[in-house]
Structures are given as C-alpha cells and as structure tokens.
C-alpha cells in the first residue's frame, strides 16, 4: 500500500503531494471535522502524512471510505460557508496569481522539512480592464474590455468631480461658477487612457512543523508602471456652458485637479517596485489512497488558514490609478481547503476554495462626494475607515500525465470580492454617497490557466494565464515560470 503513495507526487500536476514515507514511522493525527471522534488514530487518517499506527494499518476499507465522505463534507461545508459569508482576497483586481495559488502549491517531500518556491509572472502586454455597468435604459448589464483608466467609467466627468462640496470652498466656488453646466454626457467629460504594465514575483518558504502540518510564509513583489497618460476633452463648443466648462475646468484639467485636490497628480504616470503583503499560513495536508477502487486511486485533502500582514506598498492617494501591492494596509485572515482526486494514476482533478476576511483600516483617503461622480478622480481627501468586503477564490483544475514527470494541466480560477464599505470621519460629506463609488463595489475575475508541469526532485511549471470576463478588474495576461525545491 505504501508503494502506491510513493508515486502520488509525480502523478499530481496541480497539487504535487509529498512522497509517502517509506519508513515504518507511525503517525497519527486528527482531521478537521472529526476531531476527537472514533476515527482518530485509525489508519484512514494516516496514509500520507501520519506514521501508520498498528491500528491504522488494520483499518478497513469501509472506514477509509467513511473518512473520505466526512472529509468531503468538510470541504463542501467550507465551500458553502464561503459562498455565504467567508472570504479571501488580496490585490486581486491586479489579476496576478497570488503566491499561495493552489495551482502551484507543492507538497513537501516526506524527508524534507523546508521548501522554497518561486512564482514569476510576466505581463504579456499592456493590461486592459473589464468594465461593466447596468444600463438604466435597457436594464441590461453592459460588459466591455477597456483601457485600464476606464475600468470604472467610460470617461471622467469633470463637472461631477467638483460636486458635493460646500459652495464656500474653493471647489464649491468653481462648482457654483459652473452652475449652468449640467453633465450632458459630453460636457466636461474627459476620456483617460494610459498604458499599464506589470510583473509579479513571489517567494514562498515552507517548513514542516509536524508530519502533516506545515508553515508557509510567502512574500510577493510587484513591479508596475503606468505610462502614456492622456486626457481627451469631450466637451463641445456649442453654448455658453460648454465654453465656461472648458475655460474654467477642462482646458487645464490636470493642473486644476492638482490644485483642487491638494496634490492629486493625474498628469503623470508612475513606476513602482515593491513588496506585497506577507502571508503566513498553517497548512494541513492529508493523503488518502483508494486502492480498492477501480478508477479513483487517491484522495488528497488540505486545509489551511493564516494571516496576511500589511507589508505591501499602499495606495498613493495622490497618484492616478494608484495600485496597492497588497490589501492596502489591511491585515487579513485566510481560511481555505481543497480536495484533489487521482483517477487511474493518470488524470487529476482538484477543487479549492479559499476565503479572506480583511480588517478595516483608518487613514486619509479619497472618496466620492456626489452620487454622479466618476471614480478615477476624487477631490475629497479626508480621514475615513475602509472595511473591505470578503473575498472568495475558487479553483477547479484537471490535468493529465503525458510522459513520466511531465503533465499538462488546465485550470479555471474565479475570484470574487464583495463590496467595501467606507465610513467617513467628517459630516460634511455623506458616507452613503461615498459608498456608491464603483471602485468600492465588488469585483470578480475569471482566469483560465494552462500549464506544462514537470515534477521531479524539483518542480517546474511553465504557464499562461488568460483572463476573461470579470467585473471591475484588470485583465492581466501572464506568462510565468514557477519552480520549487525542497531541502
């Protein structure tokens, strides 16, 4: 029976399992969901990670099946829970794979205690964005692939930008001056475009603290560059409101914004390299061979939980389309699990569900002051508390071994982030309005990942990630190389 486990890793392109212990070390552990039950210590709990006790070796196939059923229930429960209230997240709108992406988690070899992994992602071309909006006229949702600066709105309404401020402020005086100018869909509309390119690198260290329990620490790095920023004024010159809008607002739009906002630079791009949010995770893996089954040969379960630390570069409120390299200063709690099935030692299928709950943070932020305001340029900058919504990640993959350690895999990954909530510390503005910002609304991603995988003493993955659809997200096409090595 043990020999069957030995080959598991090479047959598992999505989630490489560790080689089964070849010694007679007997391990025992308790599984989530059945802790303290009569199953504890039985062989069904031990095959991959626990030194097999005598009792375990005597375990019956029926008990093993029972365990699988229970384990599946645990996963399904987690999945259900995730759909309803739990979360996972990171800088997902960036649409790079995260360091803990389940497609690249490699199981430690049983005789090793330390693993290092590197995940390197390179943007294939300039990043685009996915925008959708509900058209009030047709009651339909329009979805479009657009320039990154149009991720939330087709264009930016300079007139709406200056609304929501008291008339006795500098912004309000300008708004009053432009009283006669309504937003007719053209007047005051600035069409922004820019080129955004990004790459992501991450390193992950893994240390076995118990035979089936590992500690993972991952550190991502990002490199982004926003360039070639252009603003095109859509305002016509047909009437007085058009002309004064141009004269007082849009002809020198970028400088006006710089002055009115107290420093928001929308004229120039930026280039940044920095660290993302460090993540520490405790992970349990359990491998359960199915020798009695004709097709299903192995079931591998995992459960993990951890924390993300706000080490990442935070959003620069005075930069155009500034991107945080993490959760923008928020600490997070992750929880997730997965199941991996091996059929006929050739095919694999896996399902992973992860959630992230982020804690709120308070600092000065830019926010929306008028319900019609577009999202790229907010002039208001005040102390506010942001409570991010929950995030969920679902991953479904299949793979096939094509030649010895080589396999081809394809996976679908979906992330969904629920709406964030902003609470203002200033009663001059409305939190209700602020929370109508499209940038605070939920986002989602859909990605197809194709991989060529080699598993041996070290593991390599050459992959391509193709985003499609999604809501309020960047569409980042990525080629990447992942490798890991155990020590």
């Amino acid at each position, binding site marked *: 029976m043990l020999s069957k486990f030995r080959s598991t890793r090479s047959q598992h392109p999505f989630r490489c399992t560790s080689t089964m212990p070849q010694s007679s070390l007997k391990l025992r552990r308790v599984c989530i969901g059945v802790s303290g039950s009569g199953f504890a210590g039985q062989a069904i709990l031990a095959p991959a990670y626990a030194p097999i006790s005598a009792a375990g070796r005597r375990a019956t196939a029926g008990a093993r099946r029972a365990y699988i059923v229970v384990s599946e229930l645990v996963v399904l429960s987690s999945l259900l829970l995730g759909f309803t209230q739990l979360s996972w997240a990171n800088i997902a709108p960036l649409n790079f794979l995260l360091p803990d992406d389940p497609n690249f988690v490699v199981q430690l070899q049983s005789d090793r205690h330390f693993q290092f992994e590197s995940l390197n992602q390179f943007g294939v071309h300039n990043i685009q964005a996915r925008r959708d*909006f509900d*058209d009030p*006229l*047709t009651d339909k949702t*329009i979805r479009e692939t657009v320039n990154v600066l149009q991720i939330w*709105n*087709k264009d930016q309404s300079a*007139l*709406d930008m*200056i*609304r*929501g*401020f*008291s*008339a*006795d402020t500098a*912004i*309000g*005086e300008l*708004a*009053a*001056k*432009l*009283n*006669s*100018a*309504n*937003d*007719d*869909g*053209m*007047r005051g509309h600035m069409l922004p475009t820019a080129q955004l390119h990004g790459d992501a690198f991450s390193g992950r260290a893994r240390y076995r603290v118990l035979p089936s329990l590992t500690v993972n620490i991952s550190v991502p790095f990002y490199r982004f560059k926003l360039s070639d920023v252009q603003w095109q004024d859509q305002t*016509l*010159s*047909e*009437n*007085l*409101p*058009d*002309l*004064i809008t141009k004269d007082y607002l849009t002809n020198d739009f970028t400088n006006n914004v710089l002055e009115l906002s107290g420093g928001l630079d929308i004229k120039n791009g930026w280039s940044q390299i920095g660290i993302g949010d460090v993540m520490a995770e405790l992970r349990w893996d359990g491998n359960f061979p199915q020798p009695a089954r004709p097709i299903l040969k192995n079931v591998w379960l995992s459960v993990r939980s951890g924390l993300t630390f706000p080490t990442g570069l935070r959003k620069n409120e005075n930069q155009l389309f500034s991107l945080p390299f993490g959760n923008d200063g928020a600490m997070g709690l992750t929880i997730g699990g997965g199941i991996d099935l091996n059929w006929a030692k050739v095919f694999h299928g896996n399902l992973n569900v992860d959630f992230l709950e982020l804690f709120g943070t308070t600092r000065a932020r830019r926010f929306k002051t*008028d319900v*019609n305001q577009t999202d790229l340029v907010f002039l208001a900058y005040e102390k506010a508390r942001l409570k991010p919504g929950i995030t969920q990640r679902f991953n479904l993959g299949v793979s096939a071994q094509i030649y010895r350690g080589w396999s081809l895999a394809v996976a679908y990954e979906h992330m969904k982030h629920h709406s964030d909530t902003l609470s203002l510390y200033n009663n001059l503005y409305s939190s209700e309005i602020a929370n109508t910002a499209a940038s605070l609304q939920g986002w989602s991603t859909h990605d197809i990942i194709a991989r060529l995988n080699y598993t041996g003493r070290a593991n390599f993955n050459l992959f391509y990630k193709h985003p499609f659809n999604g809501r309020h997200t960047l569409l980042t096409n990525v080629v990447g190389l992942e490798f890991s090595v155990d020590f």
Partner: protein
Amino acid sequence: MLNPPLRIALLNLLWLLPLQAAKTITPTLPAPIGPHAYFYQLLSGGAIANFYVAANTAVANNTYAIAVSRNGKNLTALAPAKATVDNQKAAANPITGKKIARLGLADDLPAVVLDGEKQVYFLHSIIDAPTNVDVISSGNLKDSNGNLTASILALAGARQGGNYLLAAVQNQAGDTFGAAGSGIALLKSITTTVGKDKDKALRHSLSVLNNGNAFSFTGDLTALKISNTATITSNNVDFCWNPYLSCVYIAADVQAANATSGARAVVVGKITNNQLTFTPIAPDAAFSGANQIVGVNNSATTDVSIQKVRTMRTSTQLDYLIVIGGNGSRSAVGNQVYALPLVNAANSATGTLAKYDSTPTETSVNSFYRARAYTTAATSASDLLTSSSTAAVVGTGNLPLAASTEATDIFVIDDTVFVSIGNAYSSSLRSVYSGSDTPGLFSSQALFDSTGRIQAWTPWQRVGGSNEQIWGAGYIPTTGDFWLIPGTDSANLTTLQRTIWGNGNADGLLGGTTSDASVGLVANVNYPMQSLTDYNVQTAGFDQFALAIATGLKTVSLIATGQSSGGFFQPNLGDFSTGAAASTNGALPTLSSSTKLVTLTGGALNQLGPVTCSVVATAGSNHWIIVGGADGLAVLCDSSGNGWSGTISQLSDLPSNLSFKQVGNYQYVTRLVCDQNYLYVLTNEKLDRIPLSSTNFANNTLNPTTLAQPSAGSTGAPNTYFDVAISGSLALLATAQGLWRTGNGNDISTATNQTAVNWTPVLLPSPIGPVYQFCPLSATTNPNGWSTLGNIYVLSAYRGYQQARINRLTVNLSGAIDDNTVQFLPDQYLADQLSYFIDFYNFKDAFNYLAGSMYIGNCRDNSTPLQLQKLPNGIHSGSRYFNYKSGIVTESLELTGRLNNQINQLALNSASGALMASGSFGLRVGE
C-alpha cells in the same frame, strides 16, 4: 453609460409621445355649448379640475346635454338616455337631449335647470358615467312667499356636511329679482336608508329646505340695504361658495334708496342648521361714498353692480373677495375687477370684509407655522379699500373691455385671477388692453407685501395662446393648460378646446397654419437656443408691435410676435415663413411688410460665439437691439452707431442699413438690462453700466462704469455673477455668494464705481449659497418696474449639492434705498422664523411664475431628458417641505441630434399669451 448616439436613439423613442398638438376636446358636441361650470379643488400635493358644459339647444337623444372634461381629457357624457332617476333605475333620463338653462356645481357634481322648467335636477352620482348617472329632482321651486317661482335665475352649490344647492328664484309674478317674494332656495341632497335586512336600500332625494320656500332676498334685506330699502336692479345674480370660510357670497346689482342711504352688492350667506342666513359683507358704518366697490352709502351715485364674484386664498394664506363690477350701474363697471380682503379667522366676522391695513395674525401649532388670517373686520370707511387702491385693482386697471360689456368668465387659481373676454376686437382706441375690446383669456397676479397682504397686481396679460373670442375658460392644474370655449357667436359655441404643450404642430398658432406646420414659428426657429426674450407692445420704440428675440450659436432671430392687423394690435400666428428673411453676414437683410421672422448669422455674431442674451435698449427716442454672448457684445446699428429712431410697427420698419457690430471687450455676457438710458452688461465676473450713445457705438468707446467685479482679498464678496435685476436706483445681484443689493442711500444709475454702489448682502432665510436667477413680477408693464410694489421670486440653486430653493421678496422703492426697500414675504415653516418658499431638493435651471403656474426647467445630469415641470398648485407659506416629485406633471422635450443640455427661462408671448420654452431643443409652446 451608453455612448451618446445610442442614448439619443433610445431617449428619442422614449419621449416622442408627448408631441401632440390636439386642441379640440372630443367628441364634437351635438349641441352648442350653453352654460358651463368649472370645478377646481386643491388636494394634498396638487389639484384636480373638471370642466362641465351643457347644451344650449335641445337636440334629440343628446347624451352630451351635460358633459364633463376631467383634467383636460375627452368629454364624458353625463346625460345617458337611461339613468337612475329619483331612485328608479333605468328610467328615461329627463336631461337627455334637453336644452340646459342653468348649470351649477355642488362639490364636483352638476345640477341643472332645464330650459323652461322650475325644478332642479341634481346628478348626485356620476361615477358610472356615461353608462349611468343618478339623478334626483327637487320638484318645482317656490319663492319666499311659498308660491311657484316664475324662473330660476342662478344655480350654485355648496358643500358643508353634505351637498347643498342654492337657487336664486324670482317671485311668482316674474318681477325683477329683489322684488317681494324673490329669494334664494336652499336645497339639500339627502340620502336615507329604507327597508331592513335584505331589503335595505339607500334612497336619495333633493329636498328644498325651509319648508320648500326660498329664503327671502330682496332690497329690504338687512344685509343688503343700508338705512333704507335698496333695490336690486337686475336679474343677474351670482354665487360663490367658499369652502374655507363656509359661506356663500351672493352678488347682485343694487341701488341705494337715495343719496343718504346705501346698499351692498355682495351679501354673505351662511348655512346653519339647514337654514340660510344672510350677513352684511361689512357693517353699515364701513360704507361711505361710492368708491368702496361692493357697497355705497351717502352718495349721489347710488348703484353698485357686481356681475361676478369669486374668492381667492393666496399663497400667503389670506382670503380675498374677487369681484367683477363696482360702484356704478352694470353698464359702467363691466371692465373692473377688484380684490378685497376677508376675515378668515374663526370668529363672528368670518367671511366679511377685513380691515385691509390690519396686520394678519399667524397661528402656530407646536411652534410650527400653520396659518395666517385677517382677524380684524372692517368697521369704518377707512378700513375698506377703494376702487383707486392699488391693492384692490386687479390687473392694475380695467380689463381690455368696454365698460358697458361683460367678461364672459372668471376664475381664480392660487394667486392669479383669470378673466375671459368674448368680445371681438372693437374700438376706435388702439391703446392695447385699455379702452379697446380685446378677446381672449387674461390674467393678473397678486403681489404681496411683507406681511402677506396683497399690495398690488400685475397688469392684465393675455394668456392661453389664443387670439379668439373666449366665452368660458378653466385651468387644468395637472399641466397648467387651459380649457377654452372659443367662438364668434355665443349662441353657437361648438367646441371645447384646451391648450397643450408641444411643438404646436399645425395648430394655427405658433405651430404653423392648420394645414402646414412647416411654416410655423416653431419649425422656423429650429435651432438650439441660448435665450428667448419677449418684448411687449409697451416697449419703448414699438408702436403696436411686439417682438421676441431668440439667440443661439452665432445666431439671432427677430420674431414679430404681434403687430397691427385690421386696425388692432394682434398676435402674429400661423405662417411665419412667408416673408421670412435671413442673412449670413450679420447685417439686416431686405425685409418686407410680410416679414415676421428674420434670422441673422455671421458677421460680428461669429465673434460672439454662443449668443446668450438680448435687450431692446432705449435712450430717449433712439433704440437699439443689443445682444451679448460668450465672447462679447454686439449692437445692431448702422455705421454711425444708430439703431432706429422713433417707433417701429413691423420688422420692415427697421432701417435697412443695420448690422451687428461688436463693441467693447466682454466675455461670458449673461444678462443685458436697459434702464434709464443705460445699458447694464452682466458677465460672470463683471457688471458694467454703459451710457447708450450712437457715437460711442460707432467709435467703439463704450465708456463703461464697472459697478461690480471680484475684488482680490475681499473675503466673502461675490466673485461670480449669475443674474441682475435693475430698476431705477436699485439693483439686485445674484451671485455665487448669495444675493446682494445696492447699499442704503446709493444709486446704481449714478454710482461711479463699485464702492459707490456699496453692495449689501440680502441674507436669505435658510440659504444654500449661490443665488442663480430672478423672476421679477412687476405691477407695471415695464419689466423693470418691479421695484414699485413688485415681488421677486429668487431661485437659489447650487448644482454642487443638487439643491434649489425659492425665496420671495417684496420690493417697495420709494425715495432712497433703505433696509425696508427689499423685504421677505412671510413664508415660514417654524413659527416666527422666515423661511424659503419652496425647497426642490434638486437643482433647477430655471424658474418662472407665469399664467398662474410656476414652472421649473430641469436640465439634469447624465443624459436624463430635459424636463419642463409645472409645480403643483396650492403651494403656500408653510409648504417648506414641499416634495418636488409629488403632483408635478412633467412635460419632456423632444430630443434632436445631440442630447439636450440647456433649458432657459420660459417666455410668455405677450401678444398671444402662449408660453414659450426654449433651449437646446429649439422652441416648444404651450398654446
């Protein structure tokens, strides 16, 4: 957000429907219209109105012998052949096909007297019409002596714990009303339950109270006579029930017994315990002489004639008696309309004339303002307004009607009195609206002082957009339109019409001829308009001529809205295409006597860009048309700087060598005002006063005096200007920093600089910051005459917060400007705290109070169609938390090409009375 072309397409689809031009209310009536009655009722958040018409000719099987148009919709027949008559179902309807002699309304239910009959039929239920109506009859009425009356002279209703009807009846002999036996019969609709259990049924009856006898109403009536028995001199009796005061006003033509006696032509009737009692409109001692409108005493002139009586509850919540007639015989007062204050406090004097100069009393509940009332009754002669009192004379003068004739109808909506005139044009006098008969519907609006009392009235102004003789009219509160009964023969009035908003498509008015819309004004000024301004026939430089100036992008149109025709000043209607001229070099093209429209482009207008405003400027006998735009100012003048001298009576009277010439160096001109030989130019950052001079125009040396401009370092001073109103020494300046006026003791017309103006803030109650627009109401025909007893509706609007409010000011400039020159109307919400009049809870671009309705233009954000909204009726002091969405009927405007993005203040076509809305959509009319 959709791309603009798609939005345009979708929105066009959505808003095509309102563009209709139907005017005649269908179906065509089988018999001409005879009696008609108008029902109007304020409800929470708005009002409803129905217009009843009755046949003046018997036509067999005419189920429209009585018919109603509800809220301007098609007629519903109220005389079906079978009806429930005196509780008998499916009985032959006695009204069907008959000629109706009298028509009255009790609440919203009609009562009729058939021609030749002496009983009243009351339709106590018309909810199932036209399928069925419930009719109850009174039986023949008796006079006050218990004898069968000779005739029922007038019929009206009242609602006070049930429906009552009042019928003025002659005595049996048919003597003139007022002779012994004459009286007012009081009838009541009574519902009783008969039978028990399954047989239980409701039975309806129309009972004549007072044992079937009329209540005596003769010249000996204490409430009517003063000292000695007076004489009622005609059979003309009119009623008006006031639901607020629970009394009926009975008007008649009376004559005092002699020069040492007196008489009252209006008597107050009250219904108490099913009995009708009569109260003097004012005590004997209050009448002295022959100028107190509703009464006379101790005067050689002994006649007092009140032809029609109505009441008004103002927006300041005071009640007034409105009458047509006055001191004199009936043939001498037909063109006089007066307003007299009424006691509307709950005391013994309720409903009688109030001491006009007493301060109204305000009542509150839990510190919230609730009501305002005159509480002091008039007791002496000095307590009553007279026929020369500015506050009493509705329309500031006589109706455009010969005194010997009579107005055909009168009704009151909110602060406005409407009177219809059925006379054809006739007079040797050609002064407009005075001394000559001018047909149509006319209105006058009350102007208030700081206590809420009426202090003056706007001059009579034609409304409704019709040039026809009007025999009856009503107001449609849901849209601000009018029912009209037009015709040249009062015995053959075949149609009931209504005005309607839209492009006037082939309506025979501004929408073209009845067969060709393409020749109409609407079709021929079909370009995005930046402004549309009316200049009435009283404008200096005009003789029997009225003009409207439309402006657009590098474009100016001169529209002759009215001129002499057939010897009378009449509106130009129908064909504006014939003789229309255009130029592309900014010069006046060759015009002919048939030219009603000339459009100028090019030349100096190209330099102006969007032309945003215009003015007809006058200095002595010299006149100019001056326009302002985004990039400057241009004068229509010849090479010597002259416009025209003397007067013009048609467009072709303009000198042929005029062309627009750019003068000065201005940017973003938003308002031009001409007053006292000066041109005031308001830009968004400057107010200049320019002496009007041909030489200066010729030399382009304007010699402006800058009266306002932002001052560096003067915190709180205005730095963006939106509107200006100038009248004599007083200027009001609407700015982003609130409302400002000329300082005390200063004079805008003589100030040499900004310091000399001493701009002084007018601190609006509950301000929102920017003051955006003025809507002045003047007691004179001069649009700049608002400083004398005028009112100004001030629109404060700030798009930054999507807010807009209306405050009301009263202005009384007499002598030097002081702190009392500009005061607020007493609009309150919290007791004893001035407040705004209306809060829209949204931004509004334009506000007008015209033709009895308040309108707002709403140019909203994010591609929502433009809207022209009529506010609900009945807005009054204390309506502070007026919900702008409730009760407003929206007239959307057709979209053309680019999304509409501009709507201007409405203009009233002073010649025809049509309302004109202009904006990026072009022109729309309410006529």
